């Protein structure tokens, strides 16, 4: 087991390096120049080329790409992601301001979705092709079909019209004022949680359906076991592996992938930060964010793989 974990931890390095290199290249390929943008963009008229060159030099953009990449990597090793080219503040500092909000949203949405998805997915599988199954499937397919930003717009629409409530501009962390935090976060959490629950419900249903057709389930029925014991003890535990994988990967992407929800609810989270950074060609910020998301993705993946052994004792890692 220890060897396995060590091996997996070592494998993280090439994956992260690959993702870092990819985003480094993509950001450099995008037309647009941060130095030019700082001076007011392409429409700024006459910008002194000397000033522009000085700005590029100050930002370190005049060095060869490989040197820039090396400098950046060396910084990452010391947990220094550089300064934002746009605001001049350290990237780590900028991220720490936004991370609590995104983490809270991702965690709460995951909890909401798991609490909803697993019981309903089970119910749909156990009662396949009955009206219960149809209702659950229609609601869960609806969750995939309805764009989350539209649900957000509708939420705000009703809240504004009926309660005169508008989304606040400042984020209140839960440890400062839990009630204010709840009021602010409950709708985004519901919006994201519904979509996420829909995905998980479908996965639970289809994997449980597969498992319930296995021979050992038929044996359990033949032995006269009760339905509850069969579904929970023999069915669910064996059906959980793909479901856990899905929950894990979706969670990793939730941290940075909620651009649209954050835009609708004017939340100052990591997702919006990415979009702004891409628009500003703020290389260090985009690189740090992609690195962060890829890192959480591989870590979550590793944790998911390790929980497999608990769910399925046949799995032994070497």
């Amino acid at each position: 087991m220890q060897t396995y974990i060590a091996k997996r931890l070592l494998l993280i390095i090439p994956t992260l390096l690959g993702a870092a290199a990819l985003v480094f290249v993509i950001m450099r390929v995008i037309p647009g120049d941060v130095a030019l943008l700082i001076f007011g963009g392409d429409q700024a008229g006459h910008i002194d080329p000397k000033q522009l060159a000085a700005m590029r030099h100050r930002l370190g953009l005049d060095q060869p790409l490989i040197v820039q990449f090396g400098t950046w990597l060396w910084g990452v090793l010391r947990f220094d992601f550089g300064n934002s080219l746009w605001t001049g503040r350290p990237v780590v500092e900028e991220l720490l301001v936004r991370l609590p909000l995104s983490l809270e949203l991702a965690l709460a949405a995951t909890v909401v979705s798991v609490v909803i998805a697993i019981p309903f997915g089970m119910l749909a599988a156990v009662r396949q092709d009955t009206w219960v199954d149809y209702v659950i499937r229609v609601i869960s397919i609806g969750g995939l079909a309805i764009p989350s930003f539209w649900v957000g717009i509708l939420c705000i629409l009703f809240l504004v019209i009926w309660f005169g409530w508008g989304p606040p501009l400042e984020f209140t962390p839960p440890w400062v004022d839990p009630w204010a935090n709840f009021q602010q976060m409950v709708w985004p959490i519901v919006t994201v949680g519904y979509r996420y629950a829909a995905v998980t419900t479908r996965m639970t249903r289809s994997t449980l359906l597969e498992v319930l057709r296995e021979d050992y389930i038929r044996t359990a029925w033949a032995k006269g076991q009760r339905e509850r014991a069969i579904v929970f003890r023999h069915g669910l535990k064996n059906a959980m592996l793909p479901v856990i994988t899905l929950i894990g990967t979706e969670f990793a992407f939730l941290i940075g992938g909620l651009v649209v929800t954050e835009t609708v609810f004017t939340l100052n989270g990591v997702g919006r930060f990415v979009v702004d950074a891409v628009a500003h060609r703020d290389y260090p910020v985009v690189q740090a964010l992609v690195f962060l998301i890829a890192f959480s993705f591989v870590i979550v993946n590793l944790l998911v793989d390790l929980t497999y052994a608990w769910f399925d004792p046949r799995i032994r890692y070497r």
Partner: protein
Amino acid sequence: MATNYALTHATATAELAPRLTVAEEVAKFVRTKPLGAAGAAIILAMMAVAGFAEPLAPYDPYRGDYGLQFARPSADHWFGTDEFGRDILSRIMYGARIALFVGFTASFAGCTLGGLLGVISAYYGERLMDILLAFPQLILALAIASILGPSVENVVIAISIPIIPRAARVVRATALSVKENVYVEAVSALGASRPRVILQHIVPNVMAPYIIILTAQLGGAILAEAALSYLGLGTAEPTPSWGLMLSGSAPSYAEKAPWIGLFPGIAISLGVFGFNLFGDSLRDALDPKLRGR
């Protein structure tokens, strides 16, 4: 020792099961998969609206009328008008074209390329796909969209690239098991080249997961187009795209004219809902493990 048997022509007495006509096949599908049939009906309706948008749409989707800004839904304008006085129903009808075009081309391109890569990587390792999978999908699409600039074709490219690793992973899993079949070993032993083995013997046998992932990605691609357009990186004004109709004006006029944001959202949801329902039932029908008892 050879023995001569008298050859007699026996006549089978059992009657053949009558061959189902197309109408009966459809009736059977509707009976056994009612949700799938509902999905197919939605898709067909959407295609019909997209195909016959010119005769069906009551107004020109591009022409504004400043005397008719924010008109409420009425007999003249069923879904009301937007901030430029353009008829929302007509824009939704033309928007179905963009949605279907982006949905079909992006998922077809992404799944086909991904499927081929999946089959090839069943032979040659998988590290590249791991890197692409660890890469946040939306950021990839955002980056590509901002490299290429807003236009319908660029949206297709931006959406199809993140589909590639997903399709590759699914197809690869099947290809790995197909590869182990004895007939593949047999053609290899007969001296068939590797490209020939892959194209003639592996590819036809991974078509089922390919079709499943293709239909699964269709709805997702339509949603992605809406999200990109909503963020201002998809199709550009004045193209009638459903996502674009929800961006900018819809939230800011939420109190004054809620219909601007309401109907395009219903259109997106209904379209994606149709594709998902159909895809789901198709998967249930094609995957023997999921068939009803």
